[in-house]
């Protein structure tokens, strides 16, 4: 299987879908001539022309709204919002239009669109350009939210998102674009709403998504080598719908869990996972579920402060060790 970057997997998938289905087209700021701020759309304007790869005015609410209209007429727009921070300008179109139209029009009109957008900090882009606000969308019925952490999932979930008949927010992450991995180019689309057990284990369950799923795998390997701990890692992959069964079943086997998330702690994605475990695995838990998240502050721009405010492999490893200590005391 070829080993390619997450960026390349996205680009190859967009190219393949543009070639496969004439109703697919791309819209966004700087995606044509400039090839996207993060170069995901490199070469696509040359290959498919301005009709299929459209540079838009600097108006997020405008172009997301236009995409909603195009999707209502049966096209399959794939919108790039430069970063998820700018999606807030389009919140009304996403939450009050894209997510509601199918239901409020009595099921007569579908909105098959994708909003691709990266979140994440760690790039010294400061507080307004480094947020993880996927929760705002994961909260909304009518939307689907997927968050791949590997090149293979970037491909499989993007295929699924483009072919899905509902609006899908496709969360990328700035820190993942250069991550490499094997990609099976003959595999079909992923099933939206299914988490993946990416590392089976018996001692503890680590649950993450997007960048923190990749960090969780790294921490699990390190703990196996350093502490002889056999951690299971679950990559949520989909934030809405949420695969409650996979996480509950895992924790019923391992009896403890740590959740890793890049967003803020209070009311974050991890709070929903913890509540799910409390409901589904309460009698199996040997220690409180812990959460590792970002400091609850606007992300600092100063590099050392930014790194300190973000969750890391170190902070996750510390939380795992503390949880296992609590389990040992209890047993």
């Amino acid at each position, binding site marked *: 299987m070829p080993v390619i970057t997450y960026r390349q997997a996205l680009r190859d998938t967009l190219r393949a879908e543009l070639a496969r289905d004439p109703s697919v087209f791309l819209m966004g700021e700087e995606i044509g*001539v400039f090839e996207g701020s993060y170069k995901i759309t490199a070469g696509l304007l040359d290959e498919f022309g301005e009709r299929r790869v459209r*540079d838009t*005015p*600097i*108006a997020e609410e405008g172009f997301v709204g236009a995409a909603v209209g195009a999707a209502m007429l049966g096209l399959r727009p794939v919108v790039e919002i430069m970063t998820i921070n700018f999606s807030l300008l389009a919140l009304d179109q996403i939450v009050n239009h894209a997510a509601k139209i199918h239901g409020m029009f009595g099921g007569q009109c579908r909105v098959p669109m994708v909003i691709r957008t990266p979140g994440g900090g760690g790039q010294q882009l*400061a507080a307004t350009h480094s947020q993880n606000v996927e929760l705002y969308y994961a909260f909304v019925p009518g939307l689907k939210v997927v968050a791949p952490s590997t090149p293979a999932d970037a491909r499989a979930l993007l295929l699924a998102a483009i072919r899905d008949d509902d609006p899908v927010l496709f969360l990328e992450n700035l820190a993942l674009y250069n991550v490499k991995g094997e990609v099976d180019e003959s595999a079909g689309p992923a099933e939206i709403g299914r988490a993946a057990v990416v590392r089976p284990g018996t001692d503890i369950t680590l649950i993450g998504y997007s960048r923190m799923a990749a960090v969780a795998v790294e921490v699990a390997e390190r703990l196996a080598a350093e502490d002889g701990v056999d951690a299971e890692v679950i990559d949520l992959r989909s934030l809405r719908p949420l695969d409650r069964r996979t996480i509950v079943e895992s924790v019923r086997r391992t009896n403890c869990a740590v959740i890793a998330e890049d967003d803020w702690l*209070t009311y974050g994605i991890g709070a929903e996972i913890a509540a799910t475990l409390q409901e589904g695995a309460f009698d199996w838990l040997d220690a409180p579920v812990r959460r590792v998240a970002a*400091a609850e502050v606007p992300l600092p721009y*100063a590099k*050392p402060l930014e790194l300190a405010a973000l969750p890391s492999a170190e902070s996750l490893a510390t939380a795992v060790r503390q949880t296992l200590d609590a389990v040992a005391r209890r047993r």
Partner: protein
Amino acid sequence: MQLLTPEGERVHHPDFDIDITAEQLRGLYRDMVLVRRFDREGNALQRQGQLGIWVPLLGQEAAQIGAGRALTDRDMAFPSYREHGVAWCRGVKPTDLLGIFRGTDHGTWDPYEHRFQLYVIVIGNQVLNATGYAMGQRFEGKVGDQDGEATMVFFGDGATSQGDVHEGCVWAAVYDAPVVFFCQNNQWAISEPTERQSRLPLYQRARGYGFPGIRVDGNDVLATLAVSRWALDQCRTGNGPVLIEAFTYRMDAHTTSDDPTRYRLADELEAWKLKDPIERVRVHLVKQQWADQAFFDEVQAESDELAAGFREFCVNMPDPPPGRIFSEVYADEHPVLAAQRDEFLDYLHGFADASTGAQGGEH
């Protein structure tokens, strides 16, 4: 609207003329040279890893100095993030700009003392803020005669597509807010040319809102000064708002993270170099015998000294302490956050080097 051609010839305009003395023109020249010099130093400091990012103003000196020198001490200015020239005119020290670009501070100058708000990174956002401020000036009765106040807000051609700018214009119009919408059309919103934002010249949009709009040669400091003074006077006497489109050119990248050679032709930059905002003033000063070589040498030396001080200050800025992450999230201490801060600092103190807040790694 132009008062000084690219060749340094003075031309006149029936509605917007200006009396300028030799001393005043030398002052505008000095402003532009000094601002350009520390702007170039900012670019170099970023390239050398001393700044996270720098936002160059190269080519927009006349637009910013013309507007900045038209503002009075009573007026309020709302910048975007490229207004180093306006900051200079408002008495903000160039070194005060460094905190936000190096990441040691989030706001270094007092916006009320300087009557110059903090830089805003979100595109177009400040236009609504300025409109609200100007509505306040009007409701408080600070508008009506030559002693009145006005507000000037700075944004670019790209921002004109943002809803915030449109809504700001609507509100300002219906509330007669004393605000000058100062659009620096530098032709490029990162890679997108102005044609991707508007079919018609931007200044003509004002007509739809019901207030005057005017395009000025933004590389002509005299024309920009004259039009800005007129617009501010309109506002302070109760005849605002006004839209000014300063037609200029971003001669460098959007920011140091951008590479304009990917999307625009070198010929275009070469053509705009012939309209350089500083050169035409220099030529005019020489032609009029308003300045001699000693003056130009003196300004050059002063600019080099300014840049050296700017660099010296920059490389010696200390990293902020880790507790700073939590200290300005709310106006007053917040118990939940205070607990998180204490926990965080305790965690850091467990490391051998707890001075910077970094959890290992390169710091």
